[in-house]
């Protein structure tokens, strides 16, 4: 058995992502999809699978799924249908899930991810996507006396989530590191949020990822035994779970042990994966076409219409921001993470702000404010045009950066025009050379000792005079001009 150092172990990772589509009503009925309400308040006879009820496809779900598929560069199927996936479990009211088996709504696509890792060069990678299909979510079980059905004294079932529309997105096994897996998942989330088809909230379960992962001794070797990992509810958990699992599998192989095909759970508190159930005999779901739902038909016209409604996607925005607006890859990435932020930035640039300055303000002070107040950029009453106005006041020398920072809290609260605030409060910069000269002469007269020391070689004292000058002018003296005049006058 070779040692770690001379075996080029490679991990092969694929993700199955469940995205809750953010329609107001469920996939096959009008019941609400609201999250977090009292158990069993968003149910109806269809959700509960009462006898004689029938599902009818929510057309908005189809629209969201198709738009998502288009954004993932998938081909929309000519023929698509729903199937019944059968298994008995009390969170599944009909004991079958309406899903899509062999004719998903879309197949064969890809996305580009930008992989940023500390200490390593950032790179772009194209990740293949196998398919996207629609299905209904299951309800939730709450177990008493155990965290599982097995061993619990009793279990309660809440069908509020049952029937919520899901898009399941299956990647190809193109991911190689935990970082790539996390980046892929976060790019999927970003795209879904840009499209407005899902809020992608991992804590509330609107976005859930299962990881399939194996390792092999080299990139040419056949795939190793695949292990499925569930229960990660953050991107960093995805990364860490992959990294832990890669280590565990390599260690097993190097110790001459086998990796068994199974499902493992990520334990966030212990930062490790543990075995949940063995998957040797894979379940037989007895899929067959759902006779209650006809074939899914979308006219070319509707498809075209939906395609035209797609927004510019995050990767396109990133490219444009760095290419056309000259931002660094890092800034472009941060600005495009949330559509609202990206749109705020673009509006500011549109209103005449210099891109670099706008980027700095937005990713700095504005983001800090938005985050601390749990707001979105679209909620800000300080408009992008206001930001552009403020940036131009600075760049034209009308106010200093310090003044801008001072008045920002007020701007954020009131949304007032920066120009107006500056005028009202008399905060405009003193940039008249004569006025500054006058102040400097007075200043030098009141500190004769210091002037003498300066002239005898203590040049560091210039800082002292600048400080005094700013103090006297309330920070309004144009710093460049003031330095220049001060230097002249100090020389004598």
């Amino acid at each position: 058995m070779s040692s770690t150092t001379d075996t080029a172990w490679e991990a092969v990772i694929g993700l199955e992502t469940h995205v809750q589509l953010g329609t107001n009503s469920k996939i096959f009925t009008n019941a609400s999809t609201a999250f977090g309400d009292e158990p069993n308040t968003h149910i109806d006879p269809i959700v509960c699978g009462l006898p004689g009820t029938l599902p009818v496809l929510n057309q908005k779900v189809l629209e969201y799924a198709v738009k998502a598929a288009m954004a993932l560069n998938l081909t929309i199927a000519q023929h698509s249908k729903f199937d019944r996936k059968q298994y008995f479990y009390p969170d599944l009211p009909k004991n079958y899930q309406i899903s899509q088996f062999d004719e998903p709504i879309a197949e064969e696509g890809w996305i580009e991810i930008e992989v940023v890792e500390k200490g390593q060069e950032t790179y772009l990678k194209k990740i293949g996507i196998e398919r996207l299909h629609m299905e209904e979510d299951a309800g939730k079980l709450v177990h008493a006396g155990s965290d599982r059905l097995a061993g619990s004294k009793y279990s309660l079932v809440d069908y509020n989530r049952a029937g919520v529309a899901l898009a399941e997105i299956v990647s190809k096994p193109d991911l190689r590191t935990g970082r790539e897996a996390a980046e892929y998942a976060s790019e999927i989330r970003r795209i879904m949020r840009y499209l407005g088809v899902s809020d992608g909230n991992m804590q509330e379960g609107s976005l859930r990822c299962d990881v399939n992962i194996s390792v092999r001794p080299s990139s040419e070797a056949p795939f190793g035994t695949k292990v499925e990992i569930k229960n990660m509810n953050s991107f960093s958990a995805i990364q860490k779970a992959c990294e832990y699992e890669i280590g565990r599998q390599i260690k097993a192989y190097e110790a001459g042990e086998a990796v068994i095909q199974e499902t493992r759970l990520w334990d966030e508190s212990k930062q490790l994966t543990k075995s949940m159930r063995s998957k040797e005999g894979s379940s037989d779901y007895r899929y067959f076409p759902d006779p209650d739902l006809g074939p899914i038909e979308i006219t070319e016209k509707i498809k075209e219409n939906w395609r035209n409604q797609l927004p510019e996607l995050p990767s396109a925005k990133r490219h444009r921001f760095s290419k056309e607006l000259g931002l660094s890859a890092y800034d472009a990435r941060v600005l495009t993470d949330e559509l609202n932020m990206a749109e705020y930035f673009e509006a500011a640039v549109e209103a005449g702000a210099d891109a670099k300055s706008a980027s700095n303000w937005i990713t700095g002070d504005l983001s800090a404010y938005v985050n601390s107040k749990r707001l979105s950029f679209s909620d800000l009453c300080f408009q992008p045009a206001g930001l552009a106005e403020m940036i131009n006041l600075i760049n034209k020398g009308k106010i200093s950066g310090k003044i801008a920072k001072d008045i920002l809290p007020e701007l954020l609260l009131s949304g007032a025009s920066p120009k107006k605030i500056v005028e009202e409060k008399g905060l405009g910069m003193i940039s008249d050379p004569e006025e500054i000269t006058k102040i400097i002469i007075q200043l030098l007269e009141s500190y004769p000792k210091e002037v003498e020391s300066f002239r005898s070689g203590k040049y560091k004292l210039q800082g002292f005079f600048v400080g005094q000058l700013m103090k006297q002018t309330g920070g309004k003296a144009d710093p460049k001009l003031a330095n220049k005049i001060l230097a002249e006058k100090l020389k004598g």
Partner: protein
Amino acid sequence: MAIAEWRRQLSLGKVSARELTQEKLSRIKDLDQTLHSFLEVTSDRALADADRIDEARAAGQELPPLAGIPFAIKDNLCTRGIKTTCASRMLADFLPPYESTVSQRLWNSGAVLLGKTNLDEFAMGSSTETSAFGSTLNPWNIKKVPGGSSGGSAAAVASGQCMAALGSDTGGSIRQPASFCGVVGLKPTYGRVSRWGLIAFASSLDQVGPFTSSVSDAAEVLQVIAGSDPKDSTCLNIPVPNYSDSLNDSISGLRIGLIKECFDQEGLSKSVKDSVLEAANCLETLGAELTEVSCPRFNDGIATYYVIAPSEASANLARYDGVKYGYRSEASEDLAIMTARSRAEGFGSEVQRRILIGTYALSAGYVDAYYRKAQQVRTLIRRDFEAAFTKVDILLTPTAPTTAFSAGAHADDPLSMYLSDLLTIPANLAGIPAISLPCGFDQTGLPIGLQLIGNVLDEQRLLRVAYQYEKAVNVMGSSPSGEFIP
């Protein structure tokens, strides 16, 4: 009395809805101890509904088409707040919080519901003997079965306990009991009538239709229940034509095809064959052109059906697990056992048999050989019909190979019972409309059914041919009588 005649008398004030309802309720009281057509009789509601019709008439309001018509509904159609059991222990106490589209449409058209009728459990059977609440007997001879699965509805109409009834037909469950009980039974085109509120047996085959004592009544009822429904995606969004207007049009020149394979059946009784051929000749004298056509896959229908229907049923009936509603076995130590016991105790043996067949047919390793193969044969059967309808307008067969069989006749051999649906199943597989109407009696006095099959959505022509035949022959001049039927 036909629905049209009743409407006339009611509008003239010669009879009231209450009188008619009371007459039917008392007939139920007299006969149904013996026949057991009804699982539940809703007398109070029926009388209240009838009174509303009478009040409306007295107030000079225009009456809806089925005003005051005493109706029965098969107990696999959900009725809000009225027990809907599917004749199963599993749903013995099930009160639906919603109304089936067809029953809603009946209410809207003024019909008066007398009660819910017996059926084979979950509509699985051909004799109404698998009902968990006792068999229904054939009004023509109480030693015989009424057919099934809609045996309660057929017997209720045949014995005059109601003027019309609704049934459901998955493989012949309307037509075969109509044949056995000597009434008219219509299975519309798949998708012509909404399935919302029909408790599913095999969703791609189930279709609701009427039992009546005449073809014109069948047209009237179909008129009310047919049409698109946003609650059922398989319900066709195609306008409903007027089914009564063209009943009197001539059938001269219409091409009627006798399906060769049906008349070559080994199990086809001679009296049935003779009677049906006589009916064909009658149609010829009315101006129709008779030809023989071949549907080579016709006899594969039964094997195909007994894969597809149980497959769909195995999924449709998975929801009955004792968790949310329906029968729950008590004192189970864990969930899996509770589900298994609830199903073992809540379902009868025929239902369990079909769930097992369907589960097997869909299982990995068998799904290609059974379910998928059956779907392929289904396509071939449909194509046979498509080809036949390029040559003829209407197809003609017996409805069932025999007249009503004796109670318990197939108790030990479920397969032999399955054969009684041989001639009705293909129309379900192809989704095309078919009607059974009486065409004579065998030597023991049991009614024989003639089946006419139409092309997709061709109910108008189908009803016209049936009506012309009925008018010419008037078989139903006689009705069931016996020591228990006054």
